[in-house]
């Protein structure tokens, strides 16, 4: 059992991180904590993608000496760069989402003077909005 966990440790770590993020998004009352939870959630997925490109004993995918296209390339000796490239896009998306969420939080704070969800709901109920 322990061997099973250790041999696939990257997946376990990503699932644990993802669950921490999901818990923070659902369970926390503070909006900043929710946002941090969202960031952990996204980072967990990024780590998952990065880890699936790894191969045992492989090196960075920079080809030297293969420039002429005559020699065969041994794919097993290079890390798969594609998931990493995909994650560059996902990181950009995640930063943009965080930016918009922070801007929204500034709007919320200006309006309600608090970032606690239950207090905001109380204020909204009182004002009838």
């Amino acid at each position, binding site marked *: 059992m322990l061997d099973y966990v250790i041999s696939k440790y990257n997946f376990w770590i990503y699932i644990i991180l993802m669950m921490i993020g*999901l818990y923070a998004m659902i369970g926390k009352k503070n909006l900043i904590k*929710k946002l941090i939870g969202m960031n952990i959630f996204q980072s967990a*997925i990024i780590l998952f993608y990065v880890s699936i490109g790894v191969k045992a004993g492989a090196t960075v995918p920079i080809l030297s000496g293969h420039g002429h296209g005559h020699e065969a390339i041994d794919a097993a000796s290079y890390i798969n760069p594609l998931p990493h490239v995909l994650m560059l896009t996902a990181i950009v*998306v995640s930063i*943009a989402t965080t930016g*918009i969420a922070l801007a929204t939080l500034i709007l919320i704070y200006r309006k309600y003077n608090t970032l606690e969800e239950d207090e905001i709901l109380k204020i909204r109920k009182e004002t009838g909005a």
Partner: protein
Amino acid sequence: MADQFAALIIVVPLIASIFVPVIGWWKKRLCYPWVVAVLVIPLISSLSVLNTVMTTGKFSYRLGGWAPPWGIEYMLDHLSAFVLVIVSSISLIVAIYSKKSVEDNLPEKTVPFYTLFLLLVTGLMGIVITGDVFNLFVFLEISALSCYALIAIGEEGAPMATFNYIIIGTIGACFYLLGIGYLYIATGSLNMADLANILPDLYHSKVILVAFAFFTVGLAIKAGLFPMHVWLPDAYCAAPSAVSALIAPLMTKVAAYVMIRIMFTVFQPHFSVEIVPVFVILGWLSVFAIFWGGIKALAQTDLKRMLVYIVVAEVGYIVIGVSVANRMGLTGAILHIMNDAVMMACLFLVVGAVLYKTGTRDIHQLRHLNKKMPFTMAAFTITALSMVGIPPACGFFSKWYLILGTIEAGQWVWAAALLCSSLINAVLFFRVIECAYLKPMEPAYAHNGGETTHEEIQRDEAPLTMLVPIVIMAAGVILLGIFSGKIISSVIQFAVPASF
């Protein structure tokens, strides 16, 4: 030129959105004509693409000339070309409509509004056109991010609604991303056509099942299917009129399109039907969506909020059509993507116009609106009849196919749900029509100032930039109904997977 149309659909609005701030910095009032002029090009391109697809069958466009599993491919078949025409025509009409609404609601935010508007349209059309699952994720996020920002500039409760939407929308998108990751582990490919070839040998692998589950949940969140719809009513209701007229018809429908794409193109229909019992679950969820959306809509006195809950119910319609997984049902679902987009666009445009002219969305304040805004209310009534499902308006035909599909699949409860929802819609819309057309002046009001009741009610119709789109959409509701047979025989029957 003609063979580049597929790329123009995406490239033109994307690049034009960057020029909006430049133009706005020079002369602010030129933003509007620029956006309208720009959006004509995707419409022409997508019509031309649809024409090519109808004459020569499906084709693919290789971005940068890279061959498909490595390069990104745009996949143009009957389904995507059809949805592209819907997206591009509705976004053009909403853009024409947006002039007065933006001047009235957001006078200082014209430039960011139009920039985000074009980005949102780019994202929506990118989702539809792309043949690469990861590229689809990128476009999904482009549209979602611009949508968050557009909703946040809305009214009173908008920032809070937006924040909830950001959190839940991100969960949906991340689940979709995880689904891609699992598919990539198992197949090593991201191209839809390539995946469709590789996947059948792996159908019993657990990795594929997990990927499919992530796709389903992620897309259901994005489509706002019950019970993952909680973000939808607040967000759509708080958005400015012009924004909700764009996102309410298109965002959920495009997500439903992606659902059809993933379930019937990337996975073979027999996988989605036989190996996982996903359609039974989705079908029952849609039944709840229809009833829950309808009942919540009945409880509202705010016209826009009522329509937003109807959006939740309408998502249920489309997903029921997908869930019965037969030719009739899927024809109904695809037809309903079009009909519902047109009807919802028309209704939200009317609500925006009423809000602009009278400053209220309360159903009980709409008295004598038929005299004040006769054309707008006529358009509303036509669309309302279509929502109820009265021929020859288009809503009847898609419901007809959906019900035939459920009967063919032997799902009688689902058929009953569809019929009941017609009744709920009838109550909902006749309540509004009664208030607007038939109710006399409020007694209290008559007592206070006896003379005012006898005063002639002045006609106070919406401005032309609002009225023309509304009338076009209302005419569309009737015309699409009359020609729905032709649309089905020339486009939709080829969009349904051949194995049905």
